[in-house]
């Protein structure tokens, strides 16, 4: 069976049209047809993209191996949007490649994060009434106190939880958009995906939400958190956990006045590094504001208020254009490991580019610097990746 025939059969099996495949590959539809009829041969780069999109191994397309479907399919069935599906697959592919790099190339023992240790008795909890108390227990266990967590990304990094962020589009009401995903990778353990299209405050919420899954639902293989599914029991639990984890009730009561106005709400949101919307919900949940105030305050523009008060607006704005989440989609621990491996002659810049799915110039000019030491850009990158530190 030729490459073209295998490609065509797999595409049809997955009920994907040539036009859809072409669109996802950024090539003309006619080229797909030519490939399928063996009149043209894809480049290796294109072949790998095809394999990613059709969820199979390149060696099958080349006739060298039997079909091996990659990645747990249930997680992708839950995701209708083709673009989101592709990026989630790319994330999975990175996790597999990263595990291979650590284990086989660097010959290191992988230490899976054990973030659920200490909470085994609560495993499987989905009762959202228990979430506030469990959020406090988690804070206490990790000695996070009750104040705003200065840097949630750094906390995850320290706990060896890999967090990958990439823009998947905004979370419009009723949409199928994904705010985040959790996977229990067979070698790396708990790993989290955050949709970087949303405001920083919302990203923090997603992180805390996925943390709930990592601690209390860690035996689940994989899971996506969809905006449209927030009423489901497990999702509701994780949402309540996240809200209380980020904004503990005790701390909020101490800081908020008796009748906070919207400007105080935005100041509190900036302090706790959450979205204005999350803060309004917390204030209402704790009966610090009533429903009327809640309905009134949600009409205010957080950006306008933040600007008037001289607050940083990153927490309230949707983030930079998707293309700027490039090297910074990876946690600092990954970048540091890459840099060390290159300096130790265990990895070339091109190999690093392949591993991270970026170009080798970005590896050289952003991640690495010549023997003169870290560049201002690299320092800025670190600052950007550590939320809350001014860049």
């Amino acid at each position, binding site marked *: 069976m030729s490459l073209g025939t295998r490609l065509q059969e797999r595409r049809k099996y997955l009920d994907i049209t040539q036009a859809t495949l072409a669109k996802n590959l950024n090539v003309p539809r006619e080229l797909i047809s030519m490939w399928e009829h063996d009149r043209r*041969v894809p480049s290796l780069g294109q072949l*790998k993209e095809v394999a990613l999109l059709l969820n199979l191994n390149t060696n099958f397309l080349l006739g060298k191996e039997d079909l091996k479907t990659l990645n747990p399919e249930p997680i992708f069935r839950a995701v209708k949007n083709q673009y989101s599906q592709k990026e989630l697959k790319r994330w999975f592919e990175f996790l597999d490649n990263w595990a291979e790099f650590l284990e086989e190339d660097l010959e290191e023992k992988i230490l899976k994060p054990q973030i659920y240790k200490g909470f085994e008795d609560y495993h499987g909890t989905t009762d959202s009434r228990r979430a506030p108390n469990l959020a406090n227990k988690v804070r206490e266990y990790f000695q996070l106190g009750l104040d705003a967590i200065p840097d949630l990304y750094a906390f995850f990094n320290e706990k060896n939880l890999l967090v990958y962020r990439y823009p998947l589009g905004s979370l419009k009401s009723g949409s199928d958009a994904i705010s985040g995903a959790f996977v229990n990778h067979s070698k790396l353990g708990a790993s989290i995906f955050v949709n970087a299209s949303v405001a920083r405050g919302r990203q923090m919420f997603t992180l805390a939400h996925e943390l709930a899954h990592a601690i209390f639902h860690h035996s689940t293989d994989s899971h996506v958190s969809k905006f449209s599914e927030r009423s489901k029991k497990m999702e509701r639990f994780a949402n309540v956990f996240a809200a209380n984890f980020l904004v503990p009730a005790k701390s909020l009561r101490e800081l908020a006045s008796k009748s906070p106005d919207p400007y105080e709400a935005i100041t509190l949101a900036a302090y706790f590094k959450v979205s204005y919307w999350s803060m309004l919900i917390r204030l209402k949940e704790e009966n610090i504001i009533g429903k009327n105030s809640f309905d009134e305050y949600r009409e205010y523009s957080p950006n306008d208020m933040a600007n008037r008060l001289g607050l940083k607006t990153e927490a309230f704005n949707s983030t930079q254009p998707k293309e*700027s989440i490039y090297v910074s989609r990876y946690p600092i621990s990954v970048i540091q490991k890459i840099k060390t491996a290159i300096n130790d*002659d265990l990895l070339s810049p091109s190999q690093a580019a392949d*591993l991270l799915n970026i170009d080798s*110039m*970005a590896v050289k000019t952003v991640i690495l610097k*010549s*023997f003169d030491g870290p560049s201002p850009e690299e320092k800025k990158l670190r600052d950007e990746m550590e939320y809350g530190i001014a860049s």
Partner: protein
Amino acid sequence: MAQAQKRKNCVMKWSMVLPPDNKDLSQILAQPCIVDNDLLSNFVYVGQAKLLNRLLNQSVFLSPTILNPNELDKSNWNLHPPNSEFLKPLYTVYHGDYAKKYQNYVAHIEEFVGNKANLWKPTSVSRDELALAAELSGKEIKARLKQAMPNIKGRTRVHPGEAETAAIAILRAWTFLGDDQAMIRILRALYPSVPIVRTCQLLSYAANAAFINCPEAQEIFNERIAKEIFFASRNKNTEHLRILCNPIRCEWVTKASI
């Protein structure tokens, strides 16, 4: 004298890679030459693409994963970002955050890509070349390399663009112009008849042949490429490749002696 002694104590000689029949460099470069992304970027980014063309007296060939001629129309990039390795930095300039970072290079990249001076030619891959490229960039290459180099360490599988470039060079008996150490290691171990020529070699050849003078070659390689962009060091960042004059040559030097 003290300087010479210091150099003798510190540096290691770096020899050109010659194929078994000892063709000299001018003959090697007279063959069709296919370029990897590293070497191509080295010359283009510092505005020396035309020098490369003059040295070879021909256009360089580029594999489709390195530069796909169907992706050159920037007006499409908003909806269809390029997959070509060489175009990705340009894409990050127009659609990302890297405009300032790459501001010194954009004009050179655009000029090269526009190809008005016919500096490059695209090439497509055959099915056999695709299969070999997939092998070189896959897990299977490790076992083959381990047989030839049992003490090999680090990552063995290479970037798809490198793999594709090398596969074409191997199967068409072309010259491989490249700097990726991982790919060069595979070629030397498994395909030793493939001529390999690196950036430093080309620039010192250019100076020897009086296309440029030695200080110019030093400025291009030592300053613009190695320091300003990046050129891989070795031995855990203790040795750095440099062009030296009198006589003109490439040598690995320690940081202390630079």
